[in-house]
């Protein structure tokens, strides 16, 4: 993939379930290292946008490109190779009940056809490829990254909601993907656990320059992604800049449409009553 090629590109994408619009003429693109934070009311199309981006749902019209390749009409089997370069954290976690934590995290390494052929992580196209490591080593590394290395033999039902979410993150990033999709990573978690999750997302972004799309309901999540960075020496988040990173943009979705696209500063100045609901001092 050319360095200037967008990682994700939506061209006038629409999707309906019966008479209900899920996505309405959505167009955007993002490049490596960029972050998009998606706000929106329940049912506004955020999750469907992620699923369309990964080819799990086919749009009714429009075109979707991943790493420069159009995926809109690709067959399921042809999508597997492209999906190997994308990590996703599902809203419900999506961990397999019947597998222990180690097997859950190892699943993409053992089942992605592209990874089985190459034997190396998918890579983000910018960093040097990692030296060949065994599946066990990679699983251990991913679980250590989310500080859950002690849970390898446990099953998902034995973990708390926050821990399951962190295992989901480990599974999403074990293949070192070029694009990470997070669906409500902090939903239903207490503030301390939610901030731990965001710290992990920042850590991943800092270390691998990954393109990231994050769906969230918490304004604070978007603020942290835009203004903070992960400090590896202290192991904590710290403020990066007062004005916010230009590579982080915020989307607000309303009934399938992209009602807002811009920086946090621009979001703060909006007068749209729907969009204002998502501000920390909004009237929602």
């Amino acid at each position, binding site marked *: 993939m050319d360095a200037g090629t967008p990682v994700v590109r939506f061209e006038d994408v629409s999707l309906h379930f019966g008479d209900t619009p899920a996505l309405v003429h959505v167009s955007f693109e993002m490049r490596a290292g960029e972050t998009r934070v998606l706000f929106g009311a329940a049912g506004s199309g955020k999750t469907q946008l992620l*699923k369309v981006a*990964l080819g*799990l749902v086919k749009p009714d019209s429009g075109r979707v490109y991943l790493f420069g390749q159009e995926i809109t009409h690709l067959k*399921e*089997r042809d999508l*597997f190779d492209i*999906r*190997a370069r*994308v990590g*996703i954290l*599902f*809203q*419900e*976690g*999506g*961990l*397999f*009940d019947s597998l222990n934590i180690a097997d859950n995290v190892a*699943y*993409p390494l053992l*089942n*992605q*056809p*592209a*990874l089985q052929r190459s034997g190396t992580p998918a890579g983000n196209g910018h960093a040097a490829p990692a030296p060949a490591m065994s599946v066990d080593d990679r699983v251990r590394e991913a679980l250590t990254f989310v500080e859950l290395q002690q849970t390898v033999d446990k099953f998902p039902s034995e973990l708390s909601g926050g821990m399951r979410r962190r295992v989901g993150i480990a*599974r999403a990033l074990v293949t070192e993907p070029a694009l990470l999709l997070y669906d409500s990573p902090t939903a239903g978690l207490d503030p301390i656990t939610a901030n731990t999750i965001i710290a992990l997302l920042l850590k991943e972004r800092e270390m691998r320059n990954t393109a990231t799309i994050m769906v969230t309901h918490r304004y604070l999540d978007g603020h942290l992604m835009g203004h903070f960075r992960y400090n590896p020496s202290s192991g904590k988040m710290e403020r990066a800049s007062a004005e916010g990173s230009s590579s982080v943009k915020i989307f607000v979705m309303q009934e399938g449409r992209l009602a807002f696209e811009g920086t946090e500063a621009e979001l703060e100045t909006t007068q749209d009553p729907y969009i204002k609901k998502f501000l920390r001092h909004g009237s929602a």
Partner: protein
Amino acid sequence: MLDFLKTPVESFQDFIILSFRAIRNIFRSPHYTDDIALQMEIIGVGSLPIVLMIGLFTGIVMTMNFARALMQYGTQGLIGQIVSVSLVRELGPVLTALLVAGRNASGIASEIGSMRVTEQIDAMRALGTDPTQKLVTPRLIATAFVLPLLTILADYIGLIGGWLIAVLVLNIGTTQYWSTAWRILAPNDIVQGLLKPFLFAIIISLVGCFYGMRTTGGTQGVGRATTKAVVVSSVWIFVITSMVTRVFLWLADKHYFGM
């Protein structure tokens, strides 16, 4: 005007597509042999005690009832023939299939339905696995393999139940019972007795998987999918057995397979 037909026609179309994919995947890699073996254990070994028990009591009850009618004509010596034909042709395959439908179509639908509502099916697709290949095809192969075997065992244990009543209650000799029971069976009976469970297995596994894969609406949706899977597969078992019986009677009239 025909809008009311849209949903059932679309559902049937989706079922046909799923069935086609599941059958096509039998011949495509990867093959999940561990999953096939696991499903054989769950469906076959797991169903064995209940199938054997029901088979035994079916033979016992059937022998007692038929014997009462036959005694009016002094022909209770034919009891082995009647029990044998009834079990092998109809009751063995249908009762075994209904038990497996109740136990496994529901289990398949609830397991896959739970995976659906917790996004495990989407996760599977996102992580490079075809859910039809991983979940549906192994269940199809396993059920198609073990249901005929379970039916053979149910038939045999049913005949043993009939023999117990014949010897202990009706004072019919063991040799007479088994020789009449065995000699009456024509190739026609054996073929339809094995073909039916094979067809039932396809229906039970695919209907269970189909409703599991279509589950929506959280835990309530899982409950609805489970109920539908059992009801629909049970109805289809009776439809198929009627059709197959009719076809084999026609074949017998034409002197195919002998009778």
